[in-house]
């Protein structure tokens, strides 16, 4: 039995995991990061457009601050988020970006003087002040009051990931790649590490730690049409679920991005629209202003995606061998802008579709269609990032439901969450490792290891007639079709039944090669049942949630129901042999909210079933604000009185800004 002991174990080496590893390493802990792939290959690298942080440096972001970022995030979430967590996040984001600047991220900087920009399809001149020259620049993204998204051209995730990964190398964090955690070791409701499979040798080993942090990203590959990398199969969330103790939150909250390119599904950043790109239909008509006259192409992602599909359903899609699509037109931004700020986008369009998006007119239009993009749901945690149920298990980044995104995430908030949660959760996680002893018997470790060894042997001995590749493909198509952008009770019900059948079928497969190493089919065979469990949590949660909120849109329940559904869905899998998750709920407390539920600003009014507490709390908040303003209190004091929040390190300190006292 091979056992590796450490203080702090991190599963997943993307931005969130690496930043958390630095928090632990810098507190003197023996820290190990496990990753499926070399960490610089993580899906974080694919984040293109940028990171939200309210620096307020450039002309179009002047006056920005934490309060505006908070309000955008809460509205974006359709009031589904944890507002205290959203506050912790917006308050730390400027610090995260400044830390990254120190670690070498070459953020695009403000340039003094005038430049032309395209706003609402019109050329506009923007003039930057001389005293801002050289500070960090920001661009526009959907659902934000100010231009808040800081960037390095359209390779933001790449430059961030390389800086943080190299910072981890510099600090001698022990990073081990091509290692896959396949189950968590736990006893008496505490997590002690993981059983890990070496993806080169096939060997199983135990990693024992005082606490374990899962940062394995999202579960996009449960869908066929997704922008996610092939490694985004949600294994971290799945092994947490399989403990039978830890819960997953809001799994039905799945985001569909408006502009992946057709047919490959490779993402074209929201920066395309943020910088002024527009959407056109089969007639070349710009249709978004017809649906959303105020925000147009820059409405929240869930709104734009739905409007695109709605428009296609109205017969205005562009026919193609891959089905109908919409055109994205960035040619109006001009070649110079595209070749500087949207270079990867141009490269992707040229290589995969033979289209140069800088070419003027229809020749430069790019086919796009909404596809799965982001998992708002994940391992449900407390504000510290620790599982509500399983002590010593932490989670951060997309893998977690920490819950700053609720039912819809704003563009630019995910890559921001990775590093911010890495800082905040990473520090709480490190403190847990410092405060707790290891007290686990080797016999317990042996039991978990033996169980996984047996599972692999069982899979290799199966002699059925099902193909694991076919089961996976069926699941993915089913999720696209029945648990997609538009949902209803009938299709969700069918999906739940069919997914359960697929899960049962995984016991009747046949893996052709019996090798324990270098056997890709074996890997599919132990991963797909886990993916199916996650898919069931999504479908079942979506079936039971009889309302529309953010990205979860029910055609049979069109209204947001604050009266009955202001709650978070919790899924668990108490018995190994269950074929269906156990669903429960956690109420959101309106009376503690800084921003009580209200109209989000999209579509028709009157689409909310009001909760009477919303008005009550609003009055309370208004009254408090008025009183404190009269007494000459500043925005920080007022905010603190409305909803207090804590942060580790010096993250609670104020963020300095130009033009702010």
């Amino acid at each position, binding site marked *: 039995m091979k056992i590796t002991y450490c203080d702090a174990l991190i599963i997943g080496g993307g931005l969130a995991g690496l930043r958390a590893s630095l928090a632990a390493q810098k507190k003197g802990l023996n820290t190990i990061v496990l990753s499926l*792939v070399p*960490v*610089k*290959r*993580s*899906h974080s*690298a*694919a984040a293109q457009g940028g990171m939200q942080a309210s*620096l307020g440096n450039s002309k179009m972001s002047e006056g920005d601050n934490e309060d505006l970022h908070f309000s955008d995030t809460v509205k974006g979430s359709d009031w589904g988020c944890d507002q205290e967590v959203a506050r912790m996040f917006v308050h730390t984001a400027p*610090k*995260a*970006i*400044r*830390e990254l*600047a*120190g670690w*070498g991220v*070459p*953020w*695009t*900087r*403000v340039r003094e003087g005038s430049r032309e920009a395209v706003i609402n399809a019109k050329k506009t001149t923007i003039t930057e002040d001389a005293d801002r*020259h*050289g*500070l*960090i620049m920001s661009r526009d993204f959907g659902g934000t009051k100010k231009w808040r998204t800081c960037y*390095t*051209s359209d*390779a933001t995730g790449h*430059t961030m990931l*390389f*800086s943080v990964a*190299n910072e981890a*190398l510099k600090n001698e964090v022990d990073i081990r790649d091509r290692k896959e955690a396949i189950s968590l070791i736990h006893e008496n409701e505490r997590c002690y590490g993981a059983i890990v499979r070496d993806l*080169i040798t096939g060997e199983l080993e135990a990693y024992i730690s005082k606490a374990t942090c899962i940062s394995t990203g999202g579960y996009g590959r449960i869908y066929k049409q997704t922008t996610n*990398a*092939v*490694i985004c199969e949600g294994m971290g969330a799945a092994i947490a679920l399989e403990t039978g103790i830890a819960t997953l939150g809001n799994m039905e909250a799945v985001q569909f991005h408006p502009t992946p390119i057709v*047919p*490959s599904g*490779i*993402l074209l950043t929201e920066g395309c629209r943020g910088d002024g790109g527009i959407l056109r239909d089969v007639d070349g008509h710009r249709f978004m202003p017809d649906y959303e006259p105020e925000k147009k192409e820059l409405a929240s992602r869930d709104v734009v995606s739905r409007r695109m599909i709605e428009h296609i359903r109205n017969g205005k899609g562009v026919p193609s061998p891959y089905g109908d699509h919409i055109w994205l037109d960035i040619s109006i931004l001009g070649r110079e802008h595209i070749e500087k700020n949207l270079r*990867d986008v141009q*490269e*992707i369009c040229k*290589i*995969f579709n033979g289209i140069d998006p800088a070419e003027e007119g229809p020749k430069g239009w790019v086919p796009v269609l909404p596809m799965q993009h982001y998992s708002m749901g994940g391992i449900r945690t407390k504000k510290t990032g620790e599982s509500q149920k399983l002590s010593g298990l932490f989670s951060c980044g997309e893998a977690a439901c920490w819950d700053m995104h609720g039912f819809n995430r704003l563009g630019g908030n995910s890559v921001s969450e990775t590093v911010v949660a890495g800082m905040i959760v990473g520090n709480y996680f490190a403190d847990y490792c410092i405060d707790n002893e290891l007290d686990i018997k080797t016999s317990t470790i042996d039991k978990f290891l033996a169980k996984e060894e047996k599972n692999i042997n069982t899979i290799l001995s199966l002699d059925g007639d099902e193909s694991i590749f076919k089961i996976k*493909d069926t699941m993915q198509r089913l999720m696209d079709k029945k648990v997609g952008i538009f949902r209803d009770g009938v299709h969700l019900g069918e999906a739940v039944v069919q997914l359960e059948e697929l899960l049962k079928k995984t016991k009747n497969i046949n*893996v*052709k*090669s019996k*090798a324990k*190493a*270098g*056997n*890709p*089919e074996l890997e599919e065979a132990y991963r797909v049942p886990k993916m199916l469990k996650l898919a069931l949590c999504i479908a079942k949660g979506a079936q039971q949630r009889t309302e529309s909120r953010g990205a979860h849109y029910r055609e049979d329940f069109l209204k947001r129901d604050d009266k009955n559904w202001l709650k978070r869905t919790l899924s668990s899998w108490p018995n190994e042999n269950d074929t269906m998750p156990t669903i429960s709920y956690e109420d959101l407390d309106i009376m503690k909210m800084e921003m009580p539920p209200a109209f989000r600003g999209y579509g028709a009014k009157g689409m909310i079933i009001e909760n009477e507490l919303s008005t009550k709390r609003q009055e309370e908040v208004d009254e408090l604000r008025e009183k404190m303003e009269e007494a000459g209190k500043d925005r920080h004091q007022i905010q603190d009185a409305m909803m207090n929040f804590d942060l580790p390190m010096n993250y609670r*300190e104020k*963020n*300095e800004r130009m033009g702010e006292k």
Partner: protein
Amino acid sequence: MSRDITISVLKFNPRDEDSKPEFVEYNLKETPGMTLFIALTKIREEIDADLSFDFVCRAGICGSCGMVVNGVPTLACRTLIENYPDGKLQLIPMPAFELIKDLSVNTGKWMDNMSTKVESWIVSNDEVDITKIEEKMDPDTADAVFELDRCIECGICVASCATALMRPDFVGPAGLNRIARFSIDPRDKRTDDDFYELIGDDNGIFGCMSLLSCEDHCPKHLPLQNKIAYLRRKLVSVK
């Protein structure tokens, strides 16, 4: 009309005593817009479940899928089958890296060693106060740093490089590019003397034979030729 195509792969599992390197041919139908990512995934799912290769982003961003296609090191995910008129593609794993199995090589390990050797991070004693306004940086300098920061460490330049094949400790074009990147970053306080200490030998800047295959094949079109030449002239003048 879809074409019949043939993909020939050099298969070998160094961990299996019975395995011998051999080319295995796979015949399949081309689909519109088919890339090597799509083709290899199809082969694994329908013909040979034992075939190993690496993809992550499948969009030319992560640098996982470097391999040698008809003699040319390239990113497989960005390789369109339609660009091969005879419909025949021969795939071998990239040289210079440890072979894991078939088309899968350990570029990650190589790049970590390189990164540690060239200290591929900002070196400075300045403490950044993250509650304060960030230090200003000239926008052109930031753009220039970004230009070189675009390297995705895919290893194609290393697989293309004759020196890298002869000298296992050579930091490669990727490593030299990292030094070039930090040498123009005002936040990095290292001097030319410091950089000389790191790469002032035949495993560094003086190992390059100027064959320039690195720049020919770099999928990110980094200006490797210029940067390496400039760095060499600069470091020759040290000491």
